[in-house]
């Protein structure tokens, strides 16, 4: 019953009967997939198919020749489907379904192959023929609906809807589905309903995401008439959370952070493992020697990049890279590239006293020691005693001798000791970790978790600030870094915690509904998709004064101080990692404190190109600000309050209790005032300056 195909009028062909039997299992599977994480092999599968899709463009000419033979060979398959085809001629289906259909077909085919059924032949055919077949299938996009309808009881209704929906587009569908991108349209309500019953397969979703983003990026030209941006966005959100298995909360947060064009890249990058990087221990060897030794052991490596003189990237290795004799002898340390950055930003100097507030597993601690050439002292703290074992092991293995390892809760640290020249606070992600390493994060985190850890982070940052000695001749710096390999931290920690926190000091910044200081743009973020390292946020702050502002009595002063602080902000340039800020009651103080800081900055610039514009206008502006502040005091108070109530809700009771009539900046000061520093320096009783450089 061979039948010649007319290439101009492509015949629709669905899966064979046996293939259709598989269908139930497959849709089941799809449900699981959307619920949980995506097994890697599925992703691969779909990507491969996507690829063959594109091939269909240039493979076309071959088709004509072979069509005949093929149709002969496959005659039985086609024959089985004839009934369907007849119906399909009339019926149509919305655009997005096409993809789904292709996919189903292919999947079926593969599955059927395993069972050695009818389609076996086609499976064994040469590549050309296969692509040919696929092409055909693509051209007959419609079946899936029919198939589904046949299986679903509700099929009837859908058919009608589809017809009405799709009539207009029929011609396009048949002729060229290559440029589906152009005519992406939103699925209707009925389809959405259907999806709820029969989830789409991932490839369809992926395609839809791409199309959707494309439309959103050129909204005015590509939009569908009468559809609002919100509709597109809500569909995109849904698809993203399906495809990448994030929960809606996180996707929303991510969408706030990234432009849409970058969002998909970012999510994609999170699925990929970062390359293994190692750091040379310059206390024991040199990078050149180490590289040579490792190459001799059959390791394929390369220098990490121009920005690091100690990093090496491992491409592949015939020996376990964590157990070579060189590793055991302490010649290098396995460490993600992103972990280099905070230490480089900290740029510890020889002979200084440095605190690493959450040190486990010791990568950063040993890097600090290496930069200090084993002089001075490092206090390596971690709240988790078990994780400290690895710190101790690594310290000894790498031959670091200037370290004290202790096991305090970081929040108590100012009570233990203070006066550090530099403090590194690698804020813990409270178990969120890095998504590439722990996929559970994607689904398990919600607002509550994030707020809880946000609060912890804030306390840690305050403790860290208290531990810094502003009078240190060479230092007085705090580096705050956050590893977020993923969204959880991107949104929560960075934007909410840190910025929120910093907005204590800089009350005029804005992020969406919240306001942040512009100088925060100078903080540095590293994203997986743009830097191929785990996501990271780094901010460098300089402390200007040890004096703790105090006393509940002079509330009014605090108010003015706070507002002055905002105006006295100096910001830096280029790499953007510097922010400077003063909070001062008196302009003069700000000035004197500011000057030495400036000098220090030159020394400690990590990326070497960062410079700081001198705070020339600092004192003057502060003065002006003071005047302003007094006049607008009331207004400021009000706005701060509203901000507090908005922003502080998360951080909760502690703040809100105190906060009935008070403004946030002052609350923060009170909290500092409660710690030991305050008790020790009660007599000083003035104001403090904190400068952030990021």
């Amino acid at each position, binding site marked *: 019953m061979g039948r010649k195909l007319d290439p101009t009028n492509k015949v629709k062909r669905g899966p064979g009967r046996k293939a259709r039997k598989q269908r139930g299992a497959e849709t089941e599977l799809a449900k699981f997939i959307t619920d949980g994480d995506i097994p890697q092999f599925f992703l691969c599968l779909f990507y491969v198919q996507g690829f063959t899709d594109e091939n269909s463009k240039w493979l076309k000419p071959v088709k004509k020749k072979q069509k005949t033979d093929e149709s002969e060979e496959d005659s039985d398959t086609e024959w089985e489907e004839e009934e369907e085809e007849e119906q399909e001629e009339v019926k149509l289906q919305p655009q997005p379904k096409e993809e789904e259909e292709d996919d189903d077909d292919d999947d079926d085919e593969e599955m059927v192959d395993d069972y050695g059924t009818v389609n076996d032949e086609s499976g064994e055919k040469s590549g050309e023929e296969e692509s040919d077949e696929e092409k055909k299938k693509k051209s007959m996009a419609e079946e899936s609906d029919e198939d589904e309808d046949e299986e679903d009881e509700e099929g009837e209704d859908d058919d009608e809807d589809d017809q009405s929906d799709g009539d207009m587009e029929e011609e396009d569908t048949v002729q060229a589905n290559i440029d589906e991108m152009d005519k992406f349209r939103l699925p209707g309500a009925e389809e959405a309903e259907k999806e709820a019953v029969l989830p789409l397969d991932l490839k369809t979703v992926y395609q839809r995401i791409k199309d959707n983003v494309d439309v959103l990026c050129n909204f005015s030209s590509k939009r569908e008439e009468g559809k609002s941006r919100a509709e597109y966005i809500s569909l995109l959100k849904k698809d993203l959370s399906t495809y990448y298995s994030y929960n809606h909360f996180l996707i929303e947060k991510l969408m706030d952070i990234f432009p849409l064009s970058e969002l998909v890249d970012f999510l994609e990058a999170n699925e990929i493992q970062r390359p293994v990087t190692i750091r040379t221990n310059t206390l024991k060897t040199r990078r050149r020697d180490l590289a040579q030794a490792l190459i001799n052991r059959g390791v394929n490596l390369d220098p990490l990049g121009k920005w690091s003189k100690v990093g090496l990237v491992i491409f592949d290795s015939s020996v376990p890279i964590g157990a070579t004799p060189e590793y055991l002898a302490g010649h290098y340390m396995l460490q993600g590239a992103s972990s280099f950055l905070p230490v480089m930003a900290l740029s510890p100097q020889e002979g200084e006293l440095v605190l690493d507030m959450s040190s486990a597993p010791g990568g950063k601690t040993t890097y600090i020691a290496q930069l200090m050439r084993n002089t001075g002292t490092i206090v390596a703290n971690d709240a988790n005693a078990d994780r400290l074992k690895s710190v101790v092991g690594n310290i*000894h293995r790498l031959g670091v001798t200037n370290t004290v390892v202790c096991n305090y809760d970081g929040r108590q640290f100012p009570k233990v000791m203070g006066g550090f020249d530099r403090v590194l606070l690698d804020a813990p992600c409270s178990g969120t970790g890095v998504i590439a390493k722990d996929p559970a994060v994607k689904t398990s985190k919600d607002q509550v978790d994030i707020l809880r850890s946000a609060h912890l982070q804030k306390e840690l940052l305050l403790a860290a600030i208290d531990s810094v000695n502003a009078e240190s001749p060479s230092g007085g710096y705090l580096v705050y870094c956050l590893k977020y390999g993923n969204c959880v931290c991107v949104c929560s920690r960075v934007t909410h915690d840190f910025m929120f926190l910093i907005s204590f000091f800089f009350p005029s910044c804005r992020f969406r509904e919240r306001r942040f200081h512009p100088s925060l743009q100078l903080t540095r973020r590293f994203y997986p998709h743009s830097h191929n390292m785990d996501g990271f946020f780094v901010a460098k702050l300089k402390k200007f004064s040890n004096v703790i502002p105090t006393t509940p009595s002079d509330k009014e002063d605090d108010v003015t101080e706070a507002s002055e602080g905002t105006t006295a902000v100096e910001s830096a340039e280029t790499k953007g990692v510097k922010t400077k800020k003063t909070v001062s009651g008196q302009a003069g103080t700000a000035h004197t404190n500011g000057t030495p800081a400036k000098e220090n900055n030159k020394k400690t610039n990590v990326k070497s190109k960062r410079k700081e514009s001198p705070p020339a206008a600092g004192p003057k502006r502060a003065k002006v600000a003071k005047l302003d502040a007094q006049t607008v005091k009331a207004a400021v108070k009000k706005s701060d309050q509203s901000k507090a109530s908005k922003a502080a809700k998360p951080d909760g009771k502690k703040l809100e209790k105190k906060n009935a009539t008070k403004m946030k900046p002052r609350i923060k000061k009170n909290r500092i005032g409660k710690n030991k520093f305050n008790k020790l320096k009660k007599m000083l009783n003035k104001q403090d300056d904190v400068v952030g450089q990021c």
Partner: protein
Amino acid sequence: MRPLTEEETKTMFEKLSKYIGENIKLLVDRPDGTYCFRLHKDRVYYMSEKILKLATNISRDKLVSVGTCFGKFTKTSKFRLHITALDFLAPYAKFKVWVKPGTEQSFLYGNHVLKSGLGRITENTEQYQGVVVYSMADVPLGFGVAAKSTQECRRVDPMSIVVFHQADVGEFIRNEDTLT
């Protein structure tokens, strides 16, 4: 954390002197500052005075490690050197043994050194002398005790043990929990 008692100091120094002999005084009198030994939770730590002062801020139960851990006193008050002391033993070692690349890995897994894997050995090593084990690239790998004197080593058959294993850098991974 407390200074070592007379007896503890004696025990420990005796042990140390097996490996570095009279070089032990170089550990105590250093040109770059005063260094001292302190006992904390049965472990002996070696640190500079500067770090010592800082460490006094930290309460005993919260202190995990200071400076370099040299080893620990066992319950029978013997002193046992840990691999963490290698950084200070290796530079001052009086007697050394070099092992061939093939044997390196075996030694790092905790095995004794056989004659067949022996690359070089310091002249005049006596039997039961403490030795530091190096790879042929002069990377210190651990330490042990010579099972044979240098003369005997020349004669014995390839499969006999020449160095008894005591500690090797593989312990950084194998015994991470008990190092300190």
